[in-house]
């Protein structure tokens, strides 16, 4: 059951549906009765340079006619690379990329998901392999169109002492899922998974993560923040698995969302599956409206209601992007948040 299998075979019966436990809030089978034709090769020049232009050494593109990419960062090197996924028209794109980071190297990967106003269907599979001691910082910004459907699945396997830091920011799509699965077979691996979703209109975004600790002394820190308005729907599914013998694992997961309109919806499932006893694992999940007392305080100080709300919302979500280490990438996400706030005003 996956979008990529359905695109591969053209069989809509392979699309995941709400009957599949992991897709209960992101139904694709009920949404897509037919699949659009495959995207043809076209020039990407008309698409401009992408949100991370000027910050990177090299840019890889996944689009019609360029469905695969691979990247290998050799030992002892630091690289900053952009990966653009471009979806357009009423077409289907099934793309994949393999990324390997050798021991002692560092990769900063800036991903952007760019789509037009068409009813496209895009599936992206990313495979990350981190050798012992390798470091990866992944920053992804999803700017899909309101009628697009996107599923991006990243699978990362970490060697001992490797570090995986990720920040996802999305404004959603007609239906969108950004999924991350991280395996820690090695000892002392370190994972940071952050995410932000800011949804309006009828948009939908699903941030799903699975972290599996198999080695000792692993650490996971996870924080996702979301704001939904209008009839939008935000979904968070976080799963932390600690296998037998993965002692001294420390895992913390947080998901916090603001529901700002009566017809908006947030669904969350933060899971802990623990098979070892020498662990410290916790998760917290809160969903609610803006704090009336804080609004009252700001109104008392003469701030107009709209400004006060924007300030509170911006402060609420910004925490999730503070972990971005690359200054340029963080600035891009900050600007994206600021723009989203402007629109909502």
């Amino acid at each position, binding site marked *: 059951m996956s979008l990529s299998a359905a695109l591969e075979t053209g069989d809509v019966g392979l699309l995941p549906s709400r009957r599949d436990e992991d897709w209960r809030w992101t139904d694709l089978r009920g949404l897509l009765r037919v699949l659009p034709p495959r995207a043809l090769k076209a020039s990407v020049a008309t698409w401009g340079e992408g949100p991370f232009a000027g910050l990177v050494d090299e840019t890889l593109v996944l689009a019609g006619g360029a469905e695969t990419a691979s990247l290998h960062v050799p030992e002892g090197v630091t690289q900053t690379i952009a990966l653009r996924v471009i979806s357009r028209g009423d077409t289907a794109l099934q793309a994949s990329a393999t990324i390997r980071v050798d021991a002692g190297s560092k990769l900063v990967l800036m991903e952007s998901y760019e789509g037009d106003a068409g009813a496209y269907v895009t599936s992206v599979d990313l495979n990350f392999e981190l050798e012992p001691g390798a470091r990866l910082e992944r920053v992804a910004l999803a700017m899909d169109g309101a009628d697009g459907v996107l599923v991006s699945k990243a699978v990362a396997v970490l060697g001992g002492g490797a570090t995986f830091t990720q920040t996802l920011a999305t404004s959603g799509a007609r239906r969108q899922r950004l999924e991350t699965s991280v395996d820690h077979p090695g000892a002392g691996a370190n994972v940071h998974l952050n995410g932000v979703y800011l949804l309006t209109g009828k948009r939908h975004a699903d941030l799903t993560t699975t972290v599996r600790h198999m080695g000792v002394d692993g650490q996971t820190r996870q924080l996702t923040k979301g704001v939904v308005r209008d009839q939008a729907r935000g979904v968070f599914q976080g799963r932390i698995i600690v296998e037998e013998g993965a002692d001294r694992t420390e895992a913390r997961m947080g998901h916090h969302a603001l529901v700002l309109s009566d017809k908006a919806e947030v669904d969350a499932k933060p899971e802990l599956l623990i098979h070892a006893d020498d662990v410290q694992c916790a998760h917290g*999940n809160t969903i609610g409206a803006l704090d009336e007392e804080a609004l009252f305080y700001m109104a008392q100080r003469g701030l107009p209601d709209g400004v006060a709300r924007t300030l509170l919302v911006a402060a609420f979500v910004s925490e999730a992007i503070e972990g971005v280490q690359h200054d340029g990438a963080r600035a891009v996400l900050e600007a994206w948040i600021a723009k989203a706030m402007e629109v909502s005003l």
Partner: protein
Amino acid sequence: MAAVQNTVDQVEGLEKYEHGFVTDVEQDFAPKGLSADTIRFISAKKEEPDWMLAWRLEAYERWLAMDEPNWAKVSFPKIDYQDSYYYAAPKTKEGPASLEDVDPEILATYAKLGIPLREQEVLAGVMGSPRYAVDAVFDSVSVVTTFKKELAAVGVIFCPMSEAIREHPELVKKYLGTVVPTSDNYYACLNSAVFSDGSFVYVPPGVRCPMELSTYFRINAAQSGQFERTLIIADKGAYVSYLEGCTAPMRDENQLHAAVVELVVLDDAEIKYSTVQNWYPGDPETGKGGIFNFVTKRADCRGDRSKVSWTQVETGSAVTWKYPSCVLRGEGSSGEFYSIAITNGRQQADTGTKMIHLGANTRSRIISKGISAGRSSNTYRGLVSAHPKAKGARNFTQCDSLLIGKTSGAHTVPYVEARNSACVFEHEATTTRLSDDQLFYAMQRGLTQEEAVQLLVNGFVKEVLQELPMEFAVEAQKLVAISLEGSVG
């Protein structure tokens, strides 16, 4: 020295599952297996009216078309539904008119279990001590219900389900199956077809039930399943506290217990429902035997400002699949769920609650404490949801898991669905093991390791224990200790 004696008793009690004996009574069985005829047999045995039989047969038809659920984090061999007895009752000529007519073997069984079936026994001891009325269900029938007269004097109906179907058909017709519909889920549907006995409680408007009501379920016959059905209705402004306990003999086979409990709460009424579940958990080494406890419990807070509180101590059963839920329909209604789930040996538990907020200003609170030891698996699975009309809904959830030993599993799977902008849902969960520092401290002060673990575990579950009525709290505390026997050292 009372405290010392208490400890000695407790340690002695740690030996094993002490309710694992079998009572030798002559029993009446339905033919083995499940068919429309089995259902007709049960219905005829219970002298049920035609509408009840039709209801059962319809449920059976639906059940045939359903599939067993497989989403829970439990695994067990496939159940052969044709290899079990669906009705087993101690043989009597007529229904026992008084306690004197009850088979002395059965009376001895309950005496052994410490359940007072004689009203005067309850009164023995200190004057003014709390009393509770008991409905004792032995396999498929209720053998005795105490204090019925006294309860009837204030208008409270407390009787076996089969009697309620005969004596109060209007109430049963009005409420049965309205909280848990026949085809709600696979096991509830099976129960609707073959349910045998259980308790029926009706508390009229404005009445505060003068004593605790309780039912004690006992599976005795081999190769039989127990399918009890309980229906409790608290009319406007009424209050009732209901307790439920259960045990079974030790056997190598798995026995199925698929119950349905329905609670209906009208305006300003309150039901407090407490369970101490101690079915035989199976052999801790081989995992052989034990009860499959697949239970559907749900409360419907239909009235404004109605309230339901579920408290459960789950220590037994080989496999538990149970989610006592609250449908918070009435404005300002509230639901509470306090749970201790302990698994040891090869036990598996997938348990939690559902709080479904439909009405405005509804509130719910979930406190769940899971303890896993041995090679067991313990999952909290819960849903909190708010409908668009549930303005001002609030939930607070706290799930803590404690791991004892390296081979057990503790899992937390909460589902949260917020569908309006004026609800506040908070959830927090932690998973840790017993702190070495605390253990060291307790042992330094002369406690053995086992005692130190008990002390810390009791502290861990205290928040839930204090929600239990007194008599049950004492039993539950002892159970916690027994369940964890052999888990350390």
